[in-house]
């Protein structure tokens, strides 16, 4: 793969974006001194094209496009190993959250549409049912991602063990959840929320 040269100038270093990430994650990006401990312990590093330390490095240089064009942030498992072991108290897991949110908002050109799709469905389910509805989540995911046969062998076994519910336990307070969702949407529209 050919790698683009990085042209660095005050214009190409998007400091505003970095500040947004810092505000969302409540942690300092500049503080990282690139020791690589996060990458050493990350269970998902082998799946990422930019290991965690490099994600922070690119962020320090304001090159966020390179990050969200890749799949690294969508392969983070949120296990918080990096944040726990970071010698410098950089909360990398929160930085990953912030990057995903900003990329999600921008409907960015991510290569990892499956993870995004799963997340989207998950949140939709909460909005509709108040709780998670595993069976529906899995079924809709398979349909939408076009993998009709994925995990098909697990289904009957789980049904037999009573682990998949055909019907969901109802939450009587659904209007409340809808209000929370719509208030947040409203706040975003007015620019009053991160």
């Amino acid at each position, binding site marked *: 793969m050919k790698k683009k040269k990085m042209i660095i100038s005050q214009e190409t270093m998007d400091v505003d974006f970095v500040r947004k990430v810092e505000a969302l994650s409540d942690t300092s990006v500049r503080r990282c001194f690139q020791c690589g401990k996060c990458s050493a312990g990350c269970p998902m590093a082998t799946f990422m094209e930019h290991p965690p330390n490099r994600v922070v490095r690119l962020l320090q240089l304001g090159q966020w496009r390179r990050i969200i064009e890749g799949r690294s942030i969508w392969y983070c498992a949120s296990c*918080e190993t990096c944040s726990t072991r970071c010698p410098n108290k950089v909360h990398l897991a929160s930085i990953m959250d912030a990057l995903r949110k900003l990329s*999600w908002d921008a409907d960015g050109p991510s290569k990892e549409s499956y993870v995004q799709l799963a997340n989207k469905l998950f949140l939709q389910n909460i909005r509709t049912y*108040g709780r998670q509805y595993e069976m529906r989540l899995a079924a809709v*995911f398979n349909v939408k991602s076009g993998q009709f046969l994925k995990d098909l062998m697990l289904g009957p076994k789980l049904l037999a063990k009573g682990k998949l519910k055909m019907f969901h336990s109802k939450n009587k307070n659904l209007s409340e959840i809808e209000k929370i969702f719509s*208030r947040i949407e409203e706040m975003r529209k007015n620019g009053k929320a991160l």
Partner: protein
Amino acid sequence: MTNDLKYSYYPGCSLHASAGEYDLSTRELFRHLGIGLTEIPDWFCCGATPAHNVDELLSLSLCAKNLELADSIEGDVAVACAACFSRLKTAQHILGENDVKRKQVEQALDAPLKLDGNVKHLLEILAKDLGLERLAASVNKPLTGLKVACYYGCLLTRPTDVPNLDCAEAPTIMEKIIEAVGAETVAWTHRLECCGANFTLSRPGVVIQLTNAILDAAKAAGADCIMVGCPLCHGNLDIRQKEIEKVYSTSYDLPVFYLTQLVGLSVGLSPENLGLGAMIVSPFPLLTEKKLMETSLLDNQVSLPGIR
């Protein structure tokens, strides 16, 4: 047995579906130990990893809403699922420290926040509130000879200062509990590694790879079974175990118990009441071999009773 412990109970979505046996065994065990447990009425999903992954405000708001609902019930909040536990604790931590986020969540809920509730994982309740001594005293069928690999996963203890359950890197709370009820523990390497639960839907290939490493390490350490405190870990270790064995052409045959199931067995609860029949990797051959269950039960297909 009587004691004055009382909790509000936040089961979380999984316990009402794929982890029904965790819910069942928790209720049964707590009833047996005389610990009060009142389910929070109309609780919502905490948002789990997907919510905080892409929309922190939503994640915080959902957790704050649940804490508000829990506030109406006497006692601390008992949480069974490690992911819910982590989310609720993190929300409390963030909202306590960051005024900007706190104000936004207040706006989203349109109500002042009630965050004072003490959120506790079942492990904490058994090991600290009830206490290991009282727990040991209630054992009547010690799990002698059972070698248990305690699996913490990632979310129970991390990051160090937030869940405040135990040391994030060298926790001992699970081992202490399971040793108190008579079982042996094995020292093994992967008790804190992530199983990749976040990707169980979207990237099962990743999950299989990570989970295989965990099962492999437990087997290598000579464990008979694995104990977990999280329905998501359980989902991967138990439900996907056969699939993993096929992919890697190996055989593990490691039953994966919830902590409440093993502790329940030791205090004399019946396999039916602990939902042992719902486990994909059957525990009955192991339990019979270790003389922890009568042979006659082996043929009897114990099925999981419905959720009440």
